[in-house]
């Protein structure tokens, strides 16, 4: 399946801005703008500030205008979505990402069958919090993403909201590929989005051990995860002559059925193998891994152990480079899987693999992994594996292949 259009926004801005920050190893963490840090026991997050949001909206509007797209997408872009500009609805970013991706793909939902699958960790629970705690206005239909998507693409055939925790947009990509394979859509938008909620920040502060100021995936001194904000969308179509950003070879999805919050190495490994089988590849063919790498006590050793086992038969000289994005952009939850997919595609195009932002000394479990530390790695990966694991043991592992630019 071909990725024919894409768009994303993180705390650094669009994909180019995010990739630049990753290459520079720059953390986008900043003091929290919502909630009381003393009560939350969390001081930092990877939020999107107003200037970054404005710049992203302008870049999407330009992409839509350049594509000459007629109809809904062009008309609605730039119109604020939501109950008010003061409400941090992640649907606002989602709508922009969907519009940008459709414009880049040149896909018009009014003339072809376009389905949309949105993966999210926290849905619009921020809007529920503001309704409950701050008397903000709300309609129930705003707690999922049908209206946000249709505000820029009213002609789409169906909009699904999947609350699949931190693997959500990987799940969305898997179902998007299935819909195309079954011939039930001409193009599918897979997307993901999230915004910070006070309730999830409370939980992170409650179960975490410190007040981290940045995320350090796979580091011996990691202090736990911090949340990030943003949205990502890709348009998936059957391969054709149309230019593609990357090819999705296969997505494996599964569930540990083991624990509500702790990952299980067996389940994680099974989903990686399922992805390889669907993609028709052997472990030795993987050149790049974009790890889930959350910087939590449990995820990083579990993931490192599973990756070490997956690549056990690969000679050290052929071991894939391993990187991750959360040190630079935080844990963007629902959007994380797709953002990692886009970073993988960009790395394959640019011939440079960003280092793991925040990583200085790797944990012992990762000693056999070729983690990219400190400086970008000059390389031309052809096949990349992208990991995403969520609460509840939901796993999504994506295999993408490079397209020569």
């Amino acid at each position, binding site marked *: 399946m071909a990725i024919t259009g894409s768009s994303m926004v993180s705390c650094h801005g669009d994909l180019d801005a995010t990739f630049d920050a990753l290459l520079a190893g720059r953390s986008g963490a900043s003091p929290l703008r919502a909630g009381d840090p003393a009560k939350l026991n969390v001081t930092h997050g990877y939020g999107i500030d107003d200037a970054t949001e404005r710049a992203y909206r302008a870049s999407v509007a330009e992409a839509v205008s350049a594509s000459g797209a007629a109809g809904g997408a062009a008309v609605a872009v730039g119109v604020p979505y939501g109950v008010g500009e003061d409400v941090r609805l992640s649907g606002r970013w989602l709508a922009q990402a969907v519009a940008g991706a459709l414009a880049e793909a040149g896909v018009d939902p009014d003339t072809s069958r376009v389905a949309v699958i949105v993966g*999210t960790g926290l849905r619009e629970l921020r809007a529920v919090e503001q309704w*409950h705690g701050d008397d903000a206005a709300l309609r*129930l*239909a705003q707690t999922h993403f049908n*209206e946000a998507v249709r505000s820029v693409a009213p002609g789409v055939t169906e909009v699904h*909201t999947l609350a699949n925790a931190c693997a959500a947009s990987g799940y969305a990509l898997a179902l998007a590929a*299935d819909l195309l394979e079954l011939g039930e859509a001409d193009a599918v938008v897979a997307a993901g989005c999230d915004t910070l909620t006070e309730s999830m920040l*409370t939980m992170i502060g409650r179960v975490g051990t410190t007040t981290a100021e940045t995320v350090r995936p796979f580091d011996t001194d990691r202090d736990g995860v911090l949340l990030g904000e943003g949205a990502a969308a890709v348009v998936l179509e059957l391969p054709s002559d149309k230019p593609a950003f990357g090819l999705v070879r296969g997505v494996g*999805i599964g569930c540990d059925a083991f624990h509500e919050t702790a990952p299980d190495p067996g389940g994680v490994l099974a989903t990686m193998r399922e992805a390889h089988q669907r993609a028709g590849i052997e472990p030795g063919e993987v050149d790049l891994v974009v790890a889930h790498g959350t910087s939590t006590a449990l995820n990083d050793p579990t993931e490192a152990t599973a990756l070490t086992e997956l690549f056990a038969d690969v000679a050290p000289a052929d071991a894939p480079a391993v990187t991750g994005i959360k040190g630079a952009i935080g844990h963007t939850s629902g959007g994380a899987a797709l953002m990692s997919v886009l970073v993988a595609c960009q790395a394959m195009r640019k011939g440079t693999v960003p280092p793991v932002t925040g990583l200085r000394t790797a944990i012992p479990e990762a000693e056999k992994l070729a983690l990219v530390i400190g400086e970008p790695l000059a390389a031309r990966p052809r096949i990349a594996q992208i990991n995403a694991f969520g609460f509840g043991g939901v796993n999504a592992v994506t295999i993408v292949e490079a397209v020569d630019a």
Partner: protein
Amino acid sequence: MPETRTQDRAADQPLSVAGWATHVPGLTAADLPGSPVEPACGPDDAKDVLGRKGLLGKEPSTRLALCATHRALGLPPGKLTEPLPYAPGTAVVVASNLGNVETVSTVLDDMRSRGGNVVSPLDAPNASSNVIASSIAIRYGFTGPNLAVCSGATAGLDAVRLARVLLLAGRAERAVVVGVEPADPVARALAALRPGDPGELIAGAGCVLLGRPGAWPTDTGITVGPVTRHTSDPGPADGQPAVGELYGAAGVVHLAAAAARLAGGADDDAAGLTVRCGDADDAWLTVDVTRAGARREAGAAA
């Protein structure tokens, strides 16, 4: 791409409904087909169906969803005594919008008034909106794809639609599909924000076991077709019991009830029923449930 697989899994192929249960607290089979003979228990008495263990910290919607699943699987009351042979690789697809809104609101209130340290760590899993689907997977060992569908009033039949995609695409041979909503004060206040006059939200769950023919051990003769989307109100479905407003759970609860009704032979002339869900904001979905010509032994819903 595996074209042969796609060809044998044509989009309009009916899927087997191998089991079903409705679990709306207080209702019996006489009120809503698929319910127990005695009134279905409320979330606080979920131990009567599930046994005592493993319910600590579980929200009402998770408990009701587990009760419906347990009964649809035809399991005796109490904890599982041995692993389910057909659990590995089985998918779980849950429709629910309001399952954790009370937890989210309570955590917010407690943190703002007294600080985050007063919040129970037991609520950490509940802050994630997929907790119902993962709890079902963990209890019964379902390791297949695990989806939490939160698309509003159509969530129930959206879940059936996505389960169908998983099955036809070969990601699983069997899918446990559940719809559930709670009726706590926060959920009810949110449900009152819907357009028109939807009626007061009630708590309830439904479960159907879907699969490729022969994938489940039971052959009930009941099948379900593709889900159809309608942008205008398709009108009331024939005989859909008026039990109360179930919002995102409605599609699965009514599908389970329709399967039970067809299997129970209450409508000897009816070869099929149409199930619907939706509202003016989220549009409407319908699906046809059909009984095979020769009726076979009823499913696991007894």
